[in-house]
C-alpha cells in the first residue's frame, strides 16, 4: 500500500469515539454563544449613543453583529478553523477529514464528497418541506378574497419566506446532492478539488436557512424574495435575516461554482476528454460558471443594503442621492443567471435519464453541450427584462427583448436532443423516466409563457402578476423539481443501496404531475385577469379560480406525503436490495460497487468511451477500471 492510500484509509472508531468536539452540536452551541457575544457585548458597545439606532425602536447593529458572530461561531464549532490553525502550527498537509464510517460523519465537517452529497440531499429535502408548507399556508389565505386566516403582515412574511427559502434551497437542489456525489465519480476522480470548501459550501446552507427562519421571530420581512430597496431599507429587524442569509447562500454558491469548475478542469481521469464528459457534468459546468460570476453580485447587493440599514449610507435611498434602480440592476444581474442556475442542472439530469431509458445514445451530444453553454452565456445579457416597465433604459427594451428571446434557441437544442434520442428508442416507463418526460411538457409551457413575458407590450400586462408567478413555477418546479425527483429515483439505489418502491413512485408522479398543472395553469388566467403577485386581497370575481388552485395545491402536498411514505417504506420495511446496476446504465457510477468505497476507485480508471454508446456494436466499456501502467500512459495520464 503506497503512502497516499494509507493517508486516506478510513478510520474505524466506536460511535462514541466519533462524538468528540467539532460536530453539529458544538457548532450550534458556539453559534448561540456567538450570537450573544456579537449582540450583547460587541453590538451593544458599538451602537451606544448612535442616533440612527435610537431614533427607531430597533437596534439593527446589535442584531446583525449577533447573527454574524453566531454564524462564525457555528462554523468554528463545526471545525472549519481546525485545519488552517493546525497548518499554522506546522502540521503536515492533508486532504481529508472525518472520512470514517458511522452515522456521525453526516453531522460533522466531512470531506468525503459522497457524504456531502447525502448531507445536501437531506438538507435540501428538509427545507423543501418547510418552504412547501409555507406555500400551503399562502394558498390557504387565498381561499378568500380578503384576509381570513393570517393577518396582512403574517401573510407577507410567509410569501417572503416561501420565495426566499425556495430560491436558496433550489440553487443547490441538484448540484448539491447529485453534483457533489456523482461529478467526481463521473469524471473518474477520488474527490473534489477542494474538499474542505465543499464541506463549507454545504454547512453554509443550514446556517443560512436557520438565519432566514429566525426572521419569523423578528417581525418578518415584507419584501418578498427580491428584497427591493428602499422597501428593504425601511423594513423591520427581520429584513436583516433575509440579507445575511441570502449573502451566505451567495457565498455558498460561489464556492460550489469555483469548486466544480476546478474539479472538472483538473481532476478528470486519463482518457476523460471533453468529448467524453457526461452531459450531466457539462450541465454542472455551465451552472458553475453562472454561480461563480453571478453570486458575488448578490453578496455585494446584500452588503450594500445592510450598510444602508446600519451605518447610514444611502446607496439606494432616492432622496439622499442614491437610487432604487441601482439595487434592481445589481439584484437582477445576479437574479437572472440565478434562474438558469436552477434550470440547467435539471436539463443535464433528464438528458442522462432519457438516454438510459430509451436505450439510445444522446442524439446530438455536441448540440446538447452547445445548448447548455449557450444558455449559460446568454443569461448574462437579459436581466433588464425584469425592468421593462420600471422606466429605466426604455430605449434599450428592444435589445433585451431580443436577447431574452434568443435564449429559446439553445433551450430548443435541449428539446431537439430529447426528441431525437426518443425516436425509435426502446422506451421503458420507469419512475425516473416519467419525471424526465414530464419536464419537457412542463418546461415547454414555462418557455411558451416566457415568450409573453419577454415581449414588451405583452409584459405590460403580465409583469408583476400571477402570470409571471405561474411562469416561473412552471420552469423551476415543473423543470428543476421534476428533474430532482427523476434523479433521486434514478440514483437512490446507488446512494443508499435500496430501490424506492415503483408503485408508490408512480402514484406520487401522477398526483404531482396532474395537480401541478391543475395548480399553475389556471394561474396564467388569474394573472392576465388582473391579480398581482403577493397580494392577500384580490378581486372577488377571481375567487372560484383561486379556490380551485388552492385545492390543487393541497393535492401536490399529498403527492409529497406519498413520497415521504415511499422513502420510509422502501428504506425500513421493504428493503429491496438494489442490484449493482438496476437500470442497466452504462454510466461509470453504476460500474462501482454499492455502497461506493470511500476512495471511489481502487485504481484511477482510464476512460475509454462516452456513457451513451447504447446499441453501438462492439462499443468498449465506459472505463477500464483496472488499467495497466502502459494503458494509463497511453491515455495521457
Amino acid at each position, binding site marked *: 500500500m503506497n503512502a497516499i492510500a494509507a493517508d486516506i484509509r478510513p478510520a474505524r472508531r466506536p460511535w462514541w469515539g466519533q462524538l468528540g468536539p467539532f460536530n453539529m452540536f458544538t457548532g450550534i452551541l458556539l453559534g448561540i454563544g456567538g450570537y450573544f457575544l456579537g449582540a450583547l457585548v460587541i453590538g451593544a458597545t458599538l451602537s451606544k449613543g448612535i442616533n440612527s439606532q435610537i431614533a427607531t425602536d430597533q437596534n439593527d447593529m446589535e442584531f446583525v453583529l449577533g447573527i454574524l458572530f453566531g454564524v462564525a461561531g457555528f462554523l468554528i464549532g463545526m471545525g472549519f478553523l481546525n485545519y488552517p490553525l493546525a497548518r499554522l502550527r506546522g502540521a503536515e498537509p492533508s486532504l481529508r477529514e472525518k472520512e470514517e464510517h458511522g452515522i456521525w460523519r453526516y453531522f460533522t465537517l466531512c470531506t468525503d464528497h459522497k457524504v456531502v452529497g447525502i448531507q445536501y440531499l437531506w438538507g435540501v429535502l428538509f427545507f423543501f418541506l418547510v418552504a412547501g408548507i409555507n406555500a400551503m399556508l399562502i394558498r390557504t389565505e387565498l381561499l378568500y378574497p380578503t384576509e381570513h386566516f393570517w393577518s396582512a403582515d403574517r401573510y407577507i412574511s410567509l410569501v417572503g419566506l416561501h420565495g426566499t427559502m425556495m430560491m436558496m434551497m433550489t440553487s443547490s437542489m441538484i448540484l448539491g446532492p447529485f453534483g457533489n456525489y456523482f461529478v467526481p465519480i463521473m469524471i473518474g476522480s477520488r474527490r473534489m478539488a477542494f474538499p474542505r470548501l465543499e464541506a463549507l459550501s454545504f454547512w453554509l446552507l443550514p446556517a443560512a436557512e436557520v438565519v432566514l427562519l429566525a426572521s419569523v421571530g423578528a417581525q418578518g420581512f415584507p419584501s418578498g424574495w427580491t428584497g427591493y430597496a428602499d422597501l428593504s431599507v425601511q423594513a423591520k429587524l427581520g429584513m436583516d435575516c433575509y440579507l445575511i442569509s441570502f449573502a451566505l447562500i451567495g457565498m455558498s454558491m460561489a464556492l460550489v461554482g469555483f469548486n466544480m469548475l476546478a474539479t472538472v478542469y483538473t481532476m478528470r481521469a486519463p482518457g476523460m476528454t471533453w468529448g467524453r464528459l457526461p452531459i450531466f457534468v457539462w450541465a454542472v459546468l455551465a451552472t458553475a460558471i453562472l454561480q461563480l460570476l453571478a453570486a458575488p453580485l448578490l453578496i455585494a447587493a446584500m452588503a450594500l443594503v445592510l450598510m444602508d440599514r446600519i451605518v447610514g449610507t444611502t446607496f439606494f435611498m432616492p432622496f439622499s442621492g442614491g437610487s432604487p434602480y441601482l439595487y434592481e440592476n445589481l439584484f437582477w444581474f445576479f437574479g437572472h443567471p440565478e434562474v438558469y442556475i436552477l434550470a440547467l442542472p435539471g436539463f443535464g439530469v433528464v438528458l442522462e435519464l432519457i438516454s438510459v431509458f430509451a436505450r439510445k445514445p444522446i442524439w446530438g451530444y455536441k448540440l446538447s453541450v452547445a445548448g447548455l453553454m449557450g444558455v449559460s452565456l446568454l443569461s448574462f445579457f437579459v436581466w433588464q427584462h425584469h425592468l421593462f416597465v420600471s*422606466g429605466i433604459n426604455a430605449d434599450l427594451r428592444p435589445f433585451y427583448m431580443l436577447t431574452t428571446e434568443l435564449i429559446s434557441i439553445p433551450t430548443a437544442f435541449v428539446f431537439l436532443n430529447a426528441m431525437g434520442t426518443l425516436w425509435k428508442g426502446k422506451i421503458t416507463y420507469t419512475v425516473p423516466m416519467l419525471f424526465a418526460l414530464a419536464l419537457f411538457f412542463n418546461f415547454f409551457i414555462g418557455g411558451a409563457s416566457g415568450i409573453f413575458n419577454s*415581449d414588451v407590450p405583452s409584459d405590460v400586462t403580465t409583469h408583476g402578476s400571477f402570470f409571471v408567478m405561474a411562469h416561473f413555477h412552471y420552469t423551476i418546479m415543473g423543470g428543476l423539481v421534476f428533474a430532482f425527483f427523476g434523479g433521486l429515483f434514478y440514483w437512490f439505489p446507488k446512494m443508499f443501496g435500496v430501490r424506492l418502491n415503483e408503485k408508490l413512485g408512480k402514484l406520487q408522479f401522477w398526483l404531482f404531475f396532474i395537480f401541478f398543472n391543475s395548480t399553475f395553469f389556471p394561474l396564467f388566467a388569474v394573472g392576465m385577469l388582473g391579480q398581482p403577485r403577493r397580494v392577500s386581497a384580490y378581486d372577488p370575481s377571481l375567487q372560484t379560480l383561486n379556490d380551485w388552485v388552492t385545492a390543487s395545491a393541497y393535492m401536490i402536498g399529498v403527492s409529497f406525503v406519498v413520497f415521504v411514505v415511499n422513502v420510509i417504506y422502501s428504506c425500513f420495511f421493504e428493503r429491496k436490495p438494489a442490484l449493482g446496476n438496476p437500470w442497466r446504465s452504462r454510466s461509470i457510477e453504476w460500474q462501482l460497487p454499492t455502497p461506493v468505497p470511500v476512495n471511489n476507485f481502487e485504481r484511477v480508471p482510464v476512460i475509454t468511451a462516452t456513457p451513451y454508446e447504447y446499441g453501438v456494436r462492439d462499443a468498449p466499456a465506459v472505463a477500464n477500471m483496472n488499467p495497466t501502467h502502459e494503458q494509463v500512459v497511453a491515455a495521457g495520464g
Partner: protein
Amino acid sequence: MSALRPSPEMRRVLLVWLVLSVIATPLVVILLGPQLPPGAASDAAHGQQQDNTVMTAIVTPIIILLIVYFAYVLSAFKHRAEGEPEDGPPMRGDVSVMALWIGVTLTIVIFLAAWGAYELFPGETGAGGGQGPTPLAIATPADASTALPVQVIGQQWAWTFRYPTYGGVETTELVLPVNRQIRFTVTSIDVIHSFWALKLGVKADAVPNTSNVAFAKPVKLEASTVRCAELCGLWHGHMYAPLYVVTPARFLAWMAEQRSRWSPATRYLPPYATKYAPEPTYRAE
C-alpha cells in the same frame, strides 16, 4: 434520417401536425384572440391584445408539434415485450435536421423580436408601459402635445391622482375622458410601487424621485380598478383605486366639483412638479 428525406413514420407525424395546425391556428386567431386580456378599452390595451393574439398563434403550431411528436413517439416506441429491452439503434444527430431546427427557431425569434419592437411605436398602438422620464420622440404618440397630463403618485398604501392642467387638484379616484390621449407621469414618495391599469393596458413602476411616463387613449366608457403591481409592504394587496372612463362633458363636470370640493386642501399642496421629496419627518418628543 435527413431533414430532406424524412422516414415514413416521421412523414406521418408531420402530416398530422400540419393538418391540426392549419385547423387550430386560425381558430385561435379568430375565436380566442378577441377574448384575450387586456381587452380593447384603450389603444394600448388593444395593441397588447393583438400582440397576445400573434404570439398565441405562433405558439399554437409549436405546442401541437410537440404534443403530436411526443404522443406518437411515446406510444409507438414503447418497449412492450417481456423482459429487459435490447438497445435501440445508435442514431446520431443529423446535421440537416439540426440546421433546419436552428433556422426555424432563429426565424421565429427574430420575427418575434422585430414585431415586439415595432409594436412599441405609438403610431401603431403604443405599448402602455412605463418609458422613463424622457421618452424618445419615436416612442411618443402624435397627439402627445394635446394629451391630458395626469400625475399618478404612489405612497404606502394609496394612489393619488393629480391633474396639473386643472389647478393641480389631487383626487383619490382616477377619472378620465374618453377618446383623448392621456399622459400619465408616475412617481412615488416612499418605495417602489407599480401603477397597473389593466383595462387601459398601462403599467408603469412608481419609483421615488423619478417620473415615469406612459401613454394610453381610453376608447370605452367603463369602470374598473387600478392596482399596485409591485410589492410595497404590508398593505400592498389593498392598494387600489377606482378608475372611471367617462364622456368629456361628465369629466368636466366632475372636475369642477372636485376643484371646488378640494380647494381648501389644494392650496397647501406643494407646487406641481414631476417628483416630490417628502418633508423631513420629525420625531415626536
